[in-house]
């Protein structure tokens, strides 16, 4: 056994000493500021080039992983926006939809052995049903509830979802095979997993589909009308109740899509929802609550910020960065980076 280790697992134990020294130079430098390694005297130009390339590769790597997780945040943010637009309720259980989406995808595609093209939509459909149940059987029963009650109700529901998931799947993390197998490929020294492309692609599709839905279809337009003025919408014969229901279904489905595509990359377990939900909310607020393009940009921005923070500053405080951004946005620009103050002032804060 030892021989195997020495040959296969531990090669290159004696790399060129100069490269090591260089590595240390870079290790000690603030990485983000020293792209041009050549400025250090005494460093051979060839090594300098290699060092520079490495830094570039790191930068690219952070960008790719930031965009991937950012796409997920953006999807979660879209979910918040859809419900908020129609009901002005913030659904604290949004993150749990993501968790459920991932775990149901594992259930259908992994445990039941469905092919992925069937298992993934099945997972989305089931989670959409959960969203439907949440609106129909819980929120609708709280008719005269105060804002506070709505907050507590959605929190309570998220606890229930989390607890149920813990029962159904236990506490272990689950993984899902990538949508397409294949080795990661390298761009400029940075590794990209094929699944990351699926995340970005499907995220893009969802956004495109949503904008078509809201701007072209009757249903979508009717939903937006409910958001603007429910009383007027009701008078014009739009079934507001059904629109509210639809908004929960849609938003749960989008959350499930996010969960399904990210699981092959990051695994999924029962208590992942809260943090994803919180960060998605951060993206929604940064982008201006109710603003679809804003959510998209803000989600990617948040993902990149986190990734760069983990890469260049401190990985321990990575999660805090997103939340600090959220607080800053809430405190100083509650209408969001891309929203207008006027539009925001008309909303019920």
């Amino acid at each position, binding site marked *: *056994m030892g021989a195997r*280790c020495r040959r296969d697992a531990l090669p290159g134990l004696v790399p060129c000493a100069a490269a090591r020294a260089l590595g*240390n130079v870079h290790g000690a430098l603030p990485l983000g500021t020293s792209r041009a390694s050549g400025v250090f005297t005494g460093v051979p130009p060839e090594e300098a080039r290699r060092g520079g390339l490495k830094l570039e590769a790191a930068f690219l790597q952070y960008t790719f992983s930031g965009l991937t997780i950012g796409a997920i945040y953006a999807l979660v943010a879209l979910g918040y926006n859809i419900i908020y637009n129609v009901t002005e309720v913030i659904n604290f259980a949004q993150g749990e939809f993501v968790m459920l989406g991932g775990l149901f995808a594992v259930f259908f595609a992994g445990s039941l052995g469905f092919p992925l093209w069937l298992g993934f939509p099945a997972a989305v459909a089931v989670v959409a049903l959960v969203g439907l149940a949440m609106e129909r059987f819980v929120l609708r029963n709280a008719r005269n509830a105060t804002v506070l009650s709505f907050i507590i109700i959605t929190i309570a529901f998220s606890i229930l979802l989390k607890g149920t998931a813990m029962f159904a799947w236990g506490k*272990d993390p689950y993984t899902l095979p990538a949508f397409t197998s294949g080795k990661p490929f390298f761009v400029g020294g940075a590794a990209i997993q094929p699944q990351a492309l699926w995340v970005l692609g499907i995220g893009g599709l969802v956004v495109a589909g949503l904008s078509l839905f809201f701007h072209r279809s009757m249903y979508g337009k009717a939903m937006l009308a409910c958001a603007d003025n429910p009383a007027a919408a009701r008078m014009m014969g739009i079934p507001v109740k059904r629109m509210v229901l639809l908004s929960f279904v849609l938003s749960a489905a989008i959350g499930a899509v996010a969960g399904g595509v990210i699981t092959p990359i990051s695994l999924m377990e029962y208590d992942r929802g809260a943090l994803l939900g919180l960060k998605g909310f951060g993206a929604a607020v940064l982008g201006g609550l109710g603003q679809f393009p804003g959510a998209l940009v803000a989600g990617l921005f948040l993902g990149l910020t986190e*990734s760069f923070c983990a890469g260049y500053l401190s990985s321990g405080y990575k999660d805090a960065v997103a939340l600090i951004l959220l607080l800053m946005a809430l405190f100083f620009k509650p209408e969001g980076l891309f929203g207008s103050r006027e539009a925001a002032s008309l909303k019920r804060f």
Partner: protein
Amino acid sequence: MKPWKQRLILWGMAVLLAVGWLWMPAGADSARAEEPYKVGAVFSVTGGASFLGEPEKKTAEMIVEEINKNGGVDGHPLELILYDDETEPSKANLHVKRLIKRDKVPVIIGPTTSGNSLAVVSIAEQSKVPLISCAASYKIVTPVEERHWVFKVAGSDSHVVGRLYEYMKAKGISKVGIMTSSTGFGASGREELQRLAPEYSMELVADETYGPKETDLTAQLTRIREAKPDAIVNWSVGPTQILAVKNWRDLGMGDIPLFQSHGFGSRKNLELAGEAAEGVMLALAKVNVGPLLADDDPQKKVIMEYTGAYEERYKEPISSFGGHAWDSLHLAVAALDAVGPDPAKIRDFLENTKGFVGQHGVFNFSAEDHNGLSKDDLAMVVVKDGDWALAE
């Protein structure tokens, strides 16, 4: 609210409370013909550390049944009073007090986690009841002058780190990049990795931490790669240790060997990580690799017996954490058998126990060492063809 409705709910609650009262286990004063020997246990059966506490609970229950079937301890039936602290220090605190005050147990095994153990050591000290913790932190039994009544059966992280560094040194590795999760487990590992590095002339060229809910470790690994280490050590439990393996493989870093903490030592992790885990190395307690042990290994027999019984009864692979419950409970039983249910005598017996063959090693306690294990009780293991194999 209508008055009759009010009354209905009030009565309903009163009935529930009454039922709850009656349900409570009978107090210690209920006399029985055959006075049983009691052992108290506090495990994290639920909550964040349930993956540790649950096999501990199962193991303890299995052992008690076995012992009672074979005539009990010195003629007395063994009674295990087990509470779940839900991985919360305040509950561990309450339960240990309850075991001492209400249940009047002469010895306590657990708690499961280092945090909860540290939250109760002072109670054991004040109440003068011996406590055999199943957690790893060295702080539980140091300084030993202030831990007169506290023992632990889990090897310290310093043993694991020592074993890893020893192996690396033998392989000519000197620059190490470490990545640890910001949990009690990860933080303790990080502390030991930093503390012991000079002793084995290791240079830590990278030191990354990450949250336990992290979804992507490529940034951390990329940073480590920048620092050009000879080897990487990841120290975490839960999904992040799988992510570390996957991302390490995806980033094409297979030429830098990856060492994991002993937390990786469960078959479930091997399944989750799949092919990516080939070549990952770790230092494990021998209980994990029973079948691989040489026949003349002193632990082979007890490990194989435990493994067989547990897997037959629960239809699931053993985990090394259940081994802690085995060790602590058998130590407690040995003490009860020898000196009876007297806390002070049990303590003295435990402190003088030598050569006790358990699941996690051969224990040699002394007044200076309330753990009794060393790094030599661990085996270096490598992942090969989706299974464990002994390294060297």
